Every structure is written in structure tokens, then in C-alpha cells.
């Protein structure tokens, strides 16, 4: 049994160091506030209402500057929108196309279309935003250390700069942004959107909702993944027991 313990300790140690090492490289400047997200934990799911409100915030606020080029209208089924709703939403945008006579034109969007981008190319995005390109939001949550907490912190982190701090035009002070000077002006204001379900649109509420939506688009597979994972882990745990019992039986008559 002792070598087995040793083997597990060593394997465990390797896993632990694998876990600790990459994290320690990215210490956060200001500690992020932790929010209890609906999608946390092994059984967490996306709060549908929050994600749908978040989509509204994205559509009415974020998408003015940020692209979300890898997400398609059909994906919105994942936050509980019906096929008819998705069809209508997609049809509300014009998608560039080549017409039958070869000239450029537009057509109404389809559920299979990707979300439209606000700028035709990165150069246009940079030119309109003081040289900074607003990052694509398809997988923004995974692209930032701190994930959902970080996004929420940035959205709510616009505070008065320290006295005497010089802030160049086109830059804004944010408590949680590395270096504190961010190109994005404070994106959310109270009552900036009017929620159809009557939820009061505070900055905090809007930030939480849009973060939930961004979490969904970053990992649309999460709910299916966790469901499958629960089954597979339970099955394997059972299999470990059965295999170990078989091993005990096979080895029962060997002196070792």
C-alpha cells in the first residue's frame, strides 16, 4: 500500500504544481470582487433571464463598438430564445451579400448568420476609438485572467481617479484595469436600457447581466458539458470500484 500512497502523492503533487504554477504567474493588481454567478460550480447553469437581459445590454450598448464574430443568431437558443424570436432578431439586421446581377447589396439576416460587426475592418475600429481596437467579445471571458469577476469589475470599476493623477484625453480611469488607464469610456449608465421584464437597470444589474451573457457566448457548451460530465464521472467512479474488486479477486491467491 505504501508505494501506492507514494504514487498518488507524486501524481497529486504534479497535478497540484500544474495547478499552482500557471496561476501564480498572473497576480492581479487590485483584488477582484467576487460575484456568485449562476454558472459556477459543477452543476451551475446560465440564468436564462439574466442572460437574455445581458443580450439586450450587448445589443444596445456593447455592440456599438465590439464585434462578436464567432457567435451566430442560432446560438441564442442556448439562452432560451424561441426559433421564432431568433428568426425575427436575425431578420432585423442587414447582411452584406452579392446579388444575382453581381452587384453588392444586403439581405435580411438568417439564424445561420454571425452577429454583425460594428466596423468593416480593424483599421476602421482603431480609427474610431482613439487607436485602440475594441476586442472581439466572442470569448472575452476566457481571454482575461479572472474571467467573469474581471469583466464585472471592469464594468463597475469606473471611479474618480486619485487626486493629482494626469489622465490624457481619450483615456479613462478604471480601478481594476491593469495600469488603470483604459481606452473604453464608462460603457454602462443607470437606466441605459429598459428591461422588458421590469428589472431595475442599475449599473450593477446591467454589468451582472451582460457578464452572464458573455459567459454564455464564451462557453455555449457548458451546460451540456457539465451534464455529460456528471454521468461520466459517476460511471467511472463505479467502474473503479468494480475493477478494483476484480483485481482483489484475481490477486487473492498470490502471495505478494
Amino acid at each position, binding site marked *: 500500500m505504501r508505494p501506492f500512497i507514494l504514487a498518488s502523492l507524486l501524481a497529486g503533487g504534479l497535478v497540484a504544481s500544474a495547478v499552482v504554477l500557471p496561476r501564480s504567474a498572473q497576480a492581479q493588481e487590485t483584488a477582484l470582487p467576487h460575484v456568485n454567478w449562476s454558472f459556477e460550480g459543477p452543476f451551475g447553469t446560465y440564468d436564462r433571464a439574466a442572460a437574455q437581459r445581458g443580450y439586450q445590454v450587448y445589443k444596445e450598448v456593447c455592440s456599438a463598438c465590439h464585434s462578436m464574430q464567432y457567435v451566430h443568431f442560432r446560438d441564442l437558443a442556448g439562452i432560451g430564445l424561441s426559433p421564432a424570436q431568433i428568426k425575427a432578431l436575425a431578420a432585423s439586421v442587414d447582411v452584406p451579400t452579392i446579388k444575382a446581377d453581381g452587384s453588392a447589396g444586403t439581405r435580411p439576416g438568417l439564424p445561420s448568420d454571425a452577429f454583425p460587426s460594428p466596423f468593416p475592418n480593424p483599421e476602421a475600429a482603431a480609427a474610431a476609438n482613439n487607436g485602440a481596437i475594441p476586442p472581439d467579445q466572442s470569448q472575452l471571458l476566457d481571454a482575461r485572467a479572472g474571467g467573469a469577476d474581471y469583466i464585472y469589475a471592469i464594468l463597475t470599476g469606473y471611479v474618480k481617479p486619485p487626486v493629482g493623477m494626469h489622465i490624457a484625453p481619450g483615456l479613462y480611469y478604471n480601478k481594476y484595469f491593469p495600469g488603470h488607464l483604459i481606452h473604453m469610456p464608462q460603457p454602462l449608465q443607470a437606466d441605459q436600457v429598459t428591461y422588458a421584464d421590469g428589472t431595475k437597470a442599475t449599473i450593477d444589474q446591467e454589468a451582472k447581466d451582460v457578464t452572464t451573457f458573455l459567459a454564455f457566448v464564451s462557453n455555449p*457548451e457548458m451546460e451540456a458539458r457539465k451534464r455529460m460530465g456528471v454521468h461520466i464521472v459517476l460511471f467511472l467512479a463505479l467502474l473503479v470500484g468494480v*475493477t478494483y474488486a476484480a483485481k482483489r479477486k484475481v490477486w487473492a*491467491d498470490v502471495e505478494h
Partner: protein
Amino acid sequence: MAGLHKSEFKNPVIRWVDTRLPLFTMMNKEYAVFPTPKNFNYFWNFGALASVQLIVMIATGVLLAMHYVPNAHMAYGSVQSIMRDVNYGWLLRYIHANGATMFFIVVYVHIFRGIYYGSYKNPRELLWMLGVVILLLMMATAFMGYVLPWGQMSFWGATVITNLFSAIPVVGNHITTWLWGGFAVGNPTLNRFFALHYLLPFVLLAVIGLHVAALHVTGSNNPLGIEVKGPQDTVPFHPYYTVKDSVGLCVFFLIYAAVVFFAPRFFMAPDNFIPANPLQTPPEIVPEWYFLPFYAILRSVPNKLGGVVLMFSSILVLFILPWLDTSKVRSARFRPMYRPFIFLLVIALVVLGEVGAHKPEGNWVLIGRLATTYYFLHFLVILPILGKIEKPLPLPESIGKPVLGGGPVPGGAAAKPMEHA
């Protein structure tokens, strides 16, 4: 024809094939009745785990390659499409990406096993050296695979590592240009890395074949590190070790599944979810965890060429380990002085891993240099001397009779397993 193989199989179809191509006889000899020391502990699972993991990687990799586009403009998007649009594409990719981490954990434990129980010693030197070749191939494959998603860390990791070759005097810059297929990491680099990432696992498979073939000539080492004296020391591989390896395999898959389904992005750097941008260097370029100790060795030398030489030496030194270790005793169980030094080596490697994850500033530089010094000291100085001055504990007479100092043989009990064969 006199050349036909005499098959012992009863089934006419199997017999027909076996007389012409004795595959069944070979499998039976090498995997069913193969006499294996009966005293293996669970450390001896890890070779089997590694071979299964290679198959998992090849299977998922081939399926991913059907959807991946090795083009600098489309690679990132094709990975997004795998994650979002391909049926179970996310599952394939998470199994494959986290599979690299699991593969290295398994192989590192496997190597530790070899070092702790002296598996590299006469007559298993070649077996060990083939293992080091496998490690090098694995590292090259993992590195090139990490470049394929074409995120920021892919791009800049590739830039840093390929630039190492520019340290070679005179021809260095020509070599990097040749590796890149241009004057910087770009589309030609991605193309060839994809080709090589697809090729190398099959080379790995071949070398693992040689590794296993060599193993089946010498037979396995065991926790006591003494040779098998006769049938009373062994059990047939099947069912004894097929079932024991199955236990380890199930535990391994359980941990693996927990990562894949509940924390699949745990080992992934956030920067690699940003598309590659040659004009913007990430604040910190950190390799995957399994390369961190070697990265730390590289950066503990102030001279570029010196660092590169030392980093490659840290692996190459393993090739001559069988001759650096002058002790005739294999297992660390019977080497009271060797034992603490191995644990020091493991600590040094973990420390190096931690150092590799930090910017080379302040105390990290000093700590990295001390750990690097110990790493080489261990192999080049301590091991050769230890074998000369250490007084090993008395070895047991045989595996079947592990009690020290002789005594009466327990009546026939040890021979019993063979009756199952």
C-alpha cells in the same frame, strides 16, 4: 513449406492466419503468458497509462484535424468553429488539449519510477535511452501542437522557442529562418508545424514499439530491483497485470474526466484566447506547465547560448544516466544515501517549475540558479560518487522470498499463480 509457423490455436480461422503470420502467438507470448515480476506496485501502471494516452491523443487529434484549418488567417476561427459548431467538437478539443497535460503527468511519474527504482541500469540502458527519445519527441509534439490554435501565446511561444536556435554561432540565424520558412513566425511556420504535429505521434508510436520490444527482451524491473530468479517470482501478465493496469486506467480516466468536464480551461492561458497578433507582445510569455522547469534552466544563465546549451543538456544528461550512476544496486529502497538525494531532485524540479512561472527578477534568479546547479550536480557529481561510497542495505534473496537474511522457503505458495497460466 518448412517455414510455416506451428500454431497452438484451436480455432481454424485463427490457426490459418497464425500459421502464416504468427501475430496471435506473439500477442499471447508478449501480453498473455508473459512472465512479469509479481511484486509491482501501482507505479508500474504508468507505462500502460502512457501508451493508452497516446492512442487517445492520436484518435482525438485525427478527428480534430478533419475540422482544423492550418492557415494563419483561418486557424483561430477554425478552432472557434470546432468549439461552437462541430458536433461534440468542444469535447474532442478539451480531451486533446487537456490530454497533453495528462500525458506529461503520466510520463513524468513514469520517469520518476525509473529513477527511483533504478530501472535504467544494466541490462536496461537501451530501454531507458529509447524512453528519453520518447520524451524529446513528446516535447516537440506538444510544443508544435500548442502553436496550432494560433492564439497570442501560441504565436509568441513559437517565436521564443524557435529563436533559441539563433543562439547557435555562425549558422544560428540561418537555422531560424529555415525553421520559420520566412523572416518571422508566420503562415509557413504554422503549416509545417501542423504537418509535423500530425507526423511525430506516429514516429512516437514506432519508438514506443521499440521501447516495448526492448522491455520484452530484458523483462521488467521491479520495486526490489533484483532479477527474476524463476517462475516462483513471476505471474503471467494476463490476467494479473491486465486487471491491475485496468484499475489504474479507471482512476486515471476519472481524474482526466473531472478536468475535461468541470475545469477544461484550467490549464489554458487566458492570452491564448486572443488571436495571434505579431504587432503586440503579451506582457509575459509563459510556456505550458510541463516545460516550466526547463524554461527556468534556460533563463538562469545570463548568456543566451549558455542557457540554450544548459536547457538541452538537462534532458540529454538523461541519456548517459545509466553510466553516471555507478551503484550496482537498482532500487532506492536499498540505497539509504541515494534516497534523500532523489527527493531533493524532485524538489529542485518543482522549485524550477515555480521559478519558470515568474519573471526572472529579484530572488527568483538566485533560486533558479541554485536549483539548476543542484539538478546538474545531482547527475554529474553526486550520482558517480554515491555509488562508490554508499553502503547499500542487504538485498533480499529473491522476489518470491523478500524476507531478508534467508530462512525457510514458504512451502510452495509462491509458485501457485503459475497454475492459472
